[in-house]
């Protein structure tokens, strides 16, 4: 029997998810692994006294819509939007098929998990840099940064 800390369990799953994504393999697996890593990292970021992704998203929601959604329900909403729920849950009355944008959801699920991972560990590890480079090249990074620069500070991560 060996002892592991969940931080390392999350890191290994995230590292695997990035590897699968960058090799152009199964996006469903990327979504599940990034989702599993997020389920752990969220608590660790909170414990480190930093702002987890879900709380940042709730803050942005408040700015845009006028109220702060409950943490648990908004976290579930994000999991649903990212396709995480569809990949790990099936109820009796769910339809046999589901509409998904797997590549976009894989990118977004990795971005959420890496946001929390970077809060804890910085962004110097090769797998983190590799994914951010992919995003920079494939989602028009410079244009995204211009939009980010002009956003008010209250809409930016702490």
């Amino acid at each position, binding site marked *: 029997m060996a002892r592991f800390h*969940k931080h390392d369990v999350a890191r290994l799953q995230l590292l695997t998810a990035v590897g699968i994504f960058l090799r152009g393999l199964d996006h469903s697996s990327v979504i599940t692994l990034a989702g599993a890593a997020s389920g752990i990292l969220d608590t660790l970021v909170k414990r480190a006294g930093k702002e987890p992704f879900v709380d940042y998203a709730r803050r942005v929601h408040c700015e845009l819509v006028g109220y702060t959604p409950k943490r648990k329900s908004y976290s579930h909403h994000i999991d649903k939007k990212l396709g995480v729920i569809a990949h790990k849950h099936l109820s009796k009355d769910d339809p046999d098929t589901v509409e998904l944008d797997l590549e976009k959801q894989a990118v977004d699920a990795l971005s959420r998990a890496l946001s929390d991972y970077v809060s804890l560990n910085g962004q110097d590890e090769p797998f983190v840099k590799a994914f951010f480079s992919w995003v920079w090249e494939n989602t028009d990074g410079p244009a995204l940064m211009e939009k980010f620069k002009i956003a008010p500070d209250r809409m930016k991560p702490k």
Partner: protein
Amino acid sequence: MTLKSYSRFELAENQLETAIGLFVSGGDRFSVISLAGAADVILSRLVINHEQKNFTELSLKCELERGGANETREAHGKCMNDALFINQIKHMDDDDDGFIDLEPEECALGAILKALVNYVILAGQQKDIVLAFKAWVRLNLDSKKYNINCDPNWKPHAK
């Protein structure tokens, strides 16, 4: 946006295939557990929807025949998932110290085998991932500890 329609079976099959690929190539065991565990949730429900008994129900039946406690399917399923650490490696409670003690190799193998039983009920024995994994099992596992030839009368060797 490229929204496409996917069958639930397809989502589970792809995850199980990735889990098996990672396992046999020496990849991360925690990722194997998460992927096989996620695939199994979908496959278990699909087996029930096809009005057949899934792995959890088959295991529960065996337990009862051996004189075990009469649990619900949900309780028995949770017990098996807890033994394989399927929930522990995707979740952390606020009061969790963060440490887990497990044998990653055994849990990864167990998670694949559990999902594979449900997959075979739905898709049959002749699919590539089933044949490949069974071949790996025959080549790599100890026949004294594991029933590598799927013999219904097999018993583990006493230690």
